[in-house]
C-alpha cells in the first residue's frame, strides 16, 4: 500500500520540478505569455508542447489497456462533450489567471517560498472552491 503513496509523491515532485525548471512559478513569465500586445513570452507554449508530446501518445497507449498497472480501473471524467458550464468556468478562471499569473499548480508549488503572496492566493483559491461547491448545492 505504501507504493500508492510513494508514486503520487514522486509524481508530485516531478510535476513541481517541471514547473520550477520551466519558469511557470514566475507570474511575470505567465503574464508575459498572456500579453500578446506587449513583449510576448512564448515559454508557456513550449511547456505545453513538451507536456503534450508525452501525454498524447502516452495516454493513447495507456488506454489501450483495460486497467492501469496498479489500480483496478481508470478514473476518467464522464463527459468529453463541449458544454456551457466548463466554458463559463474557464472564462472566470482565465480572468483570475490574467489578473495575477498563477493557475493552481504554480500557486501550490510556490507555497515553499514561504512568502505571504502564494499563501494568500492559495487560501483565496480554496475559498473559491468551497464557494463553487456551495453554489452547486444550492
Amino acid at each position, binding site marked *: 500500500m505504501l507504493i500508492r503513496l*510513494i508514486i503520487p509523491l514522486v509524481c508530485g515532485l*516531478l510535476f513541481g520540478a517541471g514547473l520550477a*525548471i520551466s519558469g511557470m512559478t514566475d507570474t511575470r513569465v505567465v503574464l508575459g505569455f498572456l500579453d500578446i500586445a506587449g513583449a510576448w513570452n512564448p515559454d508557456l507554449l513550449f511547456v505545453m508542447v513538451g507536456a503534450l508530446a508525452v501525454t498524447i501518445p502516452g495516454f493513447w497507449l495507456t488506454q489501450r489497456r483495460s486497467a492501469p498497472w496498479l489500480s483496478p480501473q481508470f478514473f476518467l471524467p464522464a463527459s468529453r462533450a463541449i458544454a456551457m458550464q466548463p466554458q463559463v468556468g474557464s472564462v472566470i478562471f482565465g480572468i483570475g489567471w490574467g489578473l495575477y499569473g498563477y493557475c493552481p499548480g504554480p500557486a501550490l508549488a510556490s507555497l515553499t517560498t514561504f512568502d505571504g503572496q502564494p499563501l494568500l492566493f492559495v487560501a483565496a483559491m480554496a475559498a473559491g472552491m468551497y464557494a463553487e461547491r456551495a453554489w452547486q448545492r444550492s
Partner: protein
Amino acid sequence: MSSPLLPLVGGFLIGASSLTMLALLGRITGISGIFAGAIQGETGMWRWAFLAGLSAAPLLYHGISHQSAPLPSEAGWLLTIVAGLLVGFGTRLAGGCTSGHGVCGIGRLSPRSIAATLTFIASGMVTVFVTRHLL
C-alpha cells in the same frame, strides 16, 4: 527572450508525471481537482502525497541548482484575494485547469478540454490586454 530548452524540459517532466499517474494509478493529474478533493475531504491520501511533492519540488530544485526562486508577484493583497477566488471558483466550475484540461484533457483529445483550454487562455489574454493596455 530565453531559450525554449528549459520550458520544453519542464513540460516533458510535467507530461511524464501525468502519464505515470494515469498508467500506474489510473488518475488524471488535474491540480485543481486534486487540491479541491484533498481540502474537501474526499477519500484518498494519494492527493496529499502528490501535493506534498508538488510543493516541495521547487524548494529542492532552487536549492540544488542555485537558480534563485522567482520573486513573488507585486500585486496588492486585494488583487491577490480576488484573483485567487476567481481561479478557485472558475477551475471547479470548469472541471479542470491548465493541468487537468490543458495537459491531460488535450492529452486524451477530449473536445471538452480543448475548448476549455482555448477559452481560459483567451480569457487570460483579454484580461491582460485590458489591465495592461486599456486601463
